[in-house]
């Protein structure tokens, strides 16, 4: 009798594959988990007038095309994300990409820096390039820490490429935080002030903001800048054409029990930054948590763009997907 160990017998005894998961019931072989990723990048419709196209400026109304959607919900079950324009900003310049592969879950959040134009181009380019490089490395045997460094390098290159040659202004730039969750470890890499939190038994913020205030709060020496205001939250590291800095800080942990990895832009942690509070709010499945935390930021005022990604730990290969 051909029976799937997870989903029972097929609807007809003749069937050679499980209708639920596609397992080959003759050989007993499970389908390989396909690598899948989702991005918050906008579709072809112009956010200004709805006309579709791919030019950098809408061919009908002339408005610069937004790289990202005003509101996006990405759901791969064990990993999910929500991003929102917020209530004040004209465009959503935060980007989030989520992915799963045969072995774990991946996400990158990038926050477009608002002092530069077209920072949504940098954030989306960086987030997508980061995830692509991470998946490439992870599926060819790199360990998560190595893969995370390669992901940040690829993201930095993509952010630099978002600049156009004769641009007069500050080139597009963004922050970067990546998360990789496997069966036994959580690995985070970052440049800038987008954060990663461990939401679980011992909740904690895993990242240290690349700002003067962030460095001082972490007990690190103040970086040598001209105007070193100890309360300054201005970025001291970022990705973009005006930065040669592509080395992320990387941290790995092997949590004892179940939990979630949260990646977010300051659009959320401006309103809720306490790891315990965040953990308390993180009930339900990943997409529900991402929605709830986005609402927290919106209800708080939504002064900035919001991006929230939730990755379940431990990642259990194909069976949880």
């Amino acid at each position: 009798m051909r029976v799937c160990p997870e989903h029972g017998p097929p609807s007809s005894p003749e069937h050679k594959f499980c209708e639920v998961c596609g397992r080959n019931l003759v050989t007993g072989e499970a389908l390989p988990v396909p690598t899948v990723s989702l991005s918050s990048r906008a579709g072809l419709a112009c956010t200004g007038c709805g006309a579709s196209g791919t030019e950098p400026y809408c061919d009908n109304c002339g408005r610069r095309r937004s790289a990202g959607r005003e509101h996006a919900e990405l759901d791969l079950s064990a990993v999910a994300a929500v991003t929102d324009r917020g209530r004040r900003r004209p465009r959503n310049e935060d980007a989030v990409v989520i992915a799963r592969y045969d072995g774990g879950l991946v996400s990158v959040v990038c926050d477009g820096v608002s002092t530069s134009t077209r920072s949504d181009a940098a954030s989306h380019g960086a987030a997508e390039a980061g995830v692509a490089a991470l998946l490439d490395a992870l599926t060819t045997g790199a360990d998560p820490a190595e893969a995370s460094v390669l992901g940040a390098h690829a993201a930095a290159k993509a952010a630099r490429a978002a600049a156009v040659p004769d641009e007069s202004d500050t080139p597009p730039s963004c922050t970067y935080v990546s998360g990789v969750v496997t069966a036994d470890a959580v690995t985070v890499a970052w440049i800038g002030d987008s954060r990663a939190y461990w939401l679980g038994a011992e909740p904690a913020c895993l990242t240290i903001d690349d700002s003067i205030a962030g460095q001082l709060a972490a007990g690190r020496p103040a970086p040598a800048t001209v105007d070193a205001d100890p309360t300054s939250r201005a970025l001291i590291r970022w990705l973009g054409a005006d930065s040669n800095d592509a080395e992320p800080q990387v941290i790995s942990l092997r949590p004892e029990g179940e939990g979630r990895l949260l990646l977010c832009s300051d659009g959320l942690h401006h309103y809720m930054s306490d790891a315990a509070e965040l953990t308390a709010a993180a009930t339900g499945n990943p997409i529900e948590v991402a929605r709830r935390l986005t609402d927290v930021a919106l209800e708080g005022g939504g002064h900035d763009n919001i991006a929230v990604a939730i990755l379940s730990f431990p990642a259990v290969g194909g069976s949880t997907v």
Partner: protein
Amino acid sequence: MTAQFTAEVDQNEYLPEGGRVVDAIVTVTAQGGDLRTASPALTAAQVIMVDTSGSMAMPGTKIAEAKKATAVAIDTLRDGVAFAVVAGTAGAHMIYPGDTRMVPANPQTRAEAKAAVSRLRADGGTAIGRWLDLANYLFAGQQAEVKHAILLTDGQNQHETPQDFQKVLDACEGKFICDSRGVGTDWVATELRKVASTLLGTADGLEDPSELPAAFRAMTEAAMGKSVADVALRVWTPAGSSIRFVKQVYPQVEDLTGRRAEVSARIGDYPTGAWGAESRDYHISVEVEPDAVGEEVLAARFSLVSGGQVLTEKLVLARWTDDTALSTKINPQVAHYTGQAELAEVIQEGIKDRDRGDVESATAKLGRAVQLAHESGHEGTAKLLARLVDVVDAPTGTVRLKKQVAGVDAELTNVRSTKTVRVKKKQPEEG
């Protein structure tokens, strides 16, 4: 096509909240070296129209220099270029070849043509429209990519009605390019400018008939140097916007706004004729729907196209800001060419007022012209204006009309009123 076209945009893209008007200067340059060596010369045809009205014999140097100039132009034609020489009076007749057609230039046809020109006699009236009509007929039989005419006249267009003249111009528009020159004292600047505008050529007057041969050579050389024909300026503007104007502003002011040919609802083409190794500036002004502060729109996409191929393309942007330091900044190029366009206008109007006897208005307008010419360092125009007015104080534009002015000086000033200069290079700091 291997011609190298490049374009640069000068603008202040920042608008205040609610701001609507976007101005930009686009400088288009066609590179010389690449044009000459990499692209084959275009096929060309040239018709030379020489005024042989009776007045060309008074003084006799006019007809003598006109013959010399025509011979020089014939010698400047490349081998194989189809050409013809037309004598213009109250009618138009073929000088060379004898029948109404064009022949390819070669040593034999050049010699025959020059011999025919040397036998020219000045006798008759002036009806420029008839000359152009014959040229149009001759060109119609030609396949050449560049069709170029030279028109030389010394008198007023007396022997046809302005309506007939206009009808011929309309018929010739887009069929060939025509450079016109006035010689002597009786030609009319507005007529020559009209020919130049409609037929995408240049207009000028010569102070002395002895300048004719050099002028004919220069016009023919420029025509022979054209390497891209039928270039159109293509402008895309967004939904909800309107084009205030599109002007060529260098080397001369030419308002192209009314010459738009619709390509689509968003796109229009404006004719610019043929290009050799040269550089031209355009001023485009667009009114857009205001967007929120911080937003950015494409106010115009500006390209040059020929035969369906885009030669170069540039974007004109608009961004709204609450930073008045940004939005109030005046782009020096835009300001300069706004001034140059006003300069052409006040000269033309000032001369018209002067001819009508409206001394007060003429003084005000020519005074403003002196002031603008002074500010922009337009020395050629400043010198011409000084023949019409006594300049009391150039910076304030204080002038007095001269009592005695040679008629040709007013025509020269008028015909050259549209010639512009580029922004002065910054003077090195004195120290």
